[in-house]
């Protein structure tokens, strides 16, 4: 067995092995360290005689032995370490076969613990990527544009809080499940959107990790409309990724995208999942409704063939289930495709007057598009400039400069790259 194969096998099993070890040892750091040691052992042993029949059980057993050694050493150095911990580790049941149920339960425990509401959102995201997805700390740091040191600190603090405040290592009981699952989905979607928005050098892999996480949770907790809806939403958005940027990394609008580049397999899977999610009893889930909107875009053969009345209607449903100013803005854009720009401009202006989105570049960009369609070009240019001054990424600024140039107006906001 080559080292690459061993590494691949390790990566496949590491997440659930770590999840089980944390349960057995009650300590994130001890579990991580001993699993790393076990991997070093695996490299030696598997290179020689090939992989064992049950790699996960092998890794857990090897790591447990390392942990026991480690605890014994601590006792020798510091008599205060409670003997109980060692006794508990020594009394671990033999892991003889590949029990997928136990591995699955432990993985869910790990996910719910990493996404516990007692941790700050950024800590939940970091911890999930580090432990559940097995990403290295430097990769996570790069994806979130912070230094390696900052990310390492964030992980240390999160683990310390879990330990000190005794965040339970479990799948939440029924009365907490709905709320906690929402929290898990929020973390997964944030991982996904971090990639989606990060055209300025974002880590492409994060969207794939988010989709993988949603599949994992969906497999372990079947029948949850929220999980199905979120997975559908991400697949449908991800399907359009190849068409969303041009060769220079510039933004291509939905109406200008080459639809032959869309990933038909992802769209088909997304559509199937949306239908399943929306058929579940109870209030429609907000991810599922957003996915239904994305599905209508995905199924339109041409931009002109988009079912805008249904999309506008779905946004109205979404606003009832999950009121938000950003959704109101999207609704207004859909309305412009059904009833024309005048009504949409009224909606956007009243949204702007309420103040919540005044600093949001897309509000001003949408307003500019409506004014342009009404041939009020001076006001449109003004709104594009406002959007340009607020846009967070260079790709978006470049796009907006292009729109502004299309009006025959020069940007008054200087291009930061030319300074």
């Amino acid at each position, binding site marked *: 067995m080559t080292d690459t194969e061993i590494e691949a096998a390790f990566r496949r099993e590491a997440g659930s092995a770590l999840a089980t070890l944390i349960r057995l040892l009650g300590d994130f750091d001890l579990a991580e360290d001993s699993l790393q040691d076990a991997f070093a052992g695996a490299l030696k042993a598997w290179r020689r005689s090939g992989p064992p029949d049950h790699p996960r059980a092998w890794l857990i057993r090897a790591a447990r032995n390392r942990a026991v050694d480690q605890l014994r050493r601590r006792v020798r150095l510091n008599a205060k370490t409670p003997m109980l911990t060692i006794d508990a580790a020594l009394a671990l049941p033999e892991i003889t076969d590949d029990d997928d149920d136990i591995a699955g339960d432990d993985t869910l425990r790990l996910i719910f613990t990493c996404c516990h509401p007692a941790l700050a959102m950024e800590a939940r995201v970091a911890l999930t990527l580090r432990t559940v997805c097995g990403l290295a700390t430097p990769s996570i740091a790069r994806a979130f544009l912070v230094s390696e040191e900052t990310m390492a600190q964030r992980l240390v603090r999160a683990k310390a809080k879990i330990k000190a405040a*005794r*965040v*339970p290592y479990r799948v939440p009981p029924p009365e907490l499940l709905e709320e906690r699952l929402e929290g898990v989905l929020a973390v997964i979607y944030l991982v996904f959107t971090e990639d989606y928005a990060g055209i300025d050098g974002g880590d492409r892999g994060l969207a794939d990790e988010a989709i993988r996480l949603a599949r994992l949770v969906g497999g372990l907790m079947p029948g949850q409309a929220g999980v199905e809806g979120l997975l559908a939403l991400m697949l449908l958005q991800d399907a359009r990724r190849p068409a969303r940027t041009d060769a220079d990394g510039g933004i291509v609008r939905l109406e200008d995208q080459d639809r032959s580049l869309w990933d038909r397999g992802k769209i088909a899977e997304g559509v199937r999942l949306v239908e399943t999610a929306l058929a579940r009893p109870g209030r429609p889930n907000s991810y599922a409704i957003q996915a239904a909107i994305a599905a209508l875009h995905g199924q339109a053969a041409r931009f002109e063939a988009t079912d805008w009345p249904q999309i506008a209607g779905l946004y109205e449903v979404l606003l009832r289930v999950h009121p938000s100013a950003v959704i109101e803005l999207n609704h207004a854009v859909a309305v412009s495709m059904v009833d024309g720009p005048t009504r949409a401009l009224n909606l956007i202006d009243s949204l702007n007057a309420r103040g919540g989105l005044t600093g949001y570049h897309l509000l001003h960009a949408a307003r500019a598009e409506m004014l342009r369609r009404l041939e009020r070009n001076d006001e449109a240019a003004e709104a594009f400039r406002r959007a340009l001054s607020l846009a967070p990424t260079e790709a978006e600024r470049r796009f907006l400069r292009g729109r502004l140039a299309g009006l025959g107006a020069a940007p008054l906001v200087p291009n930061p790259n030319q300074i």
Partner: protein
Amino acid sequence: MQYLLLIYIAESEERMGDPAEHAAYGAFTQDIVQKGQFKAGDALQPVATATTVRVRDGKTLTTDGPFAETREQLGGYYLIEAKDLDEATGIAARIPGAKRGSIEVRPVRVLS
């Protein structure tokens, strides 16, 4: 494991004199006593009665008022026994003051 539940509430909204609020606290306290979760608990006098003490270079400095002016003030506390943070936050959420103020949940450090 023990947790200290610190009840922060804007004193202008303080309704400890309110009989309904008083009864709600009584019922809550009785309930956690019966469940064996209660270790200690008290209501505090208003923050206007607070005095802050600091020792610097061996000198004791005594000043009027709380250590920091905040929108919500510490109005009382419970010390409870809970098996984990979920149980502790569950108990904290049932404190009558949680509806208007905030409850800070702090694990008590175990000295080994």
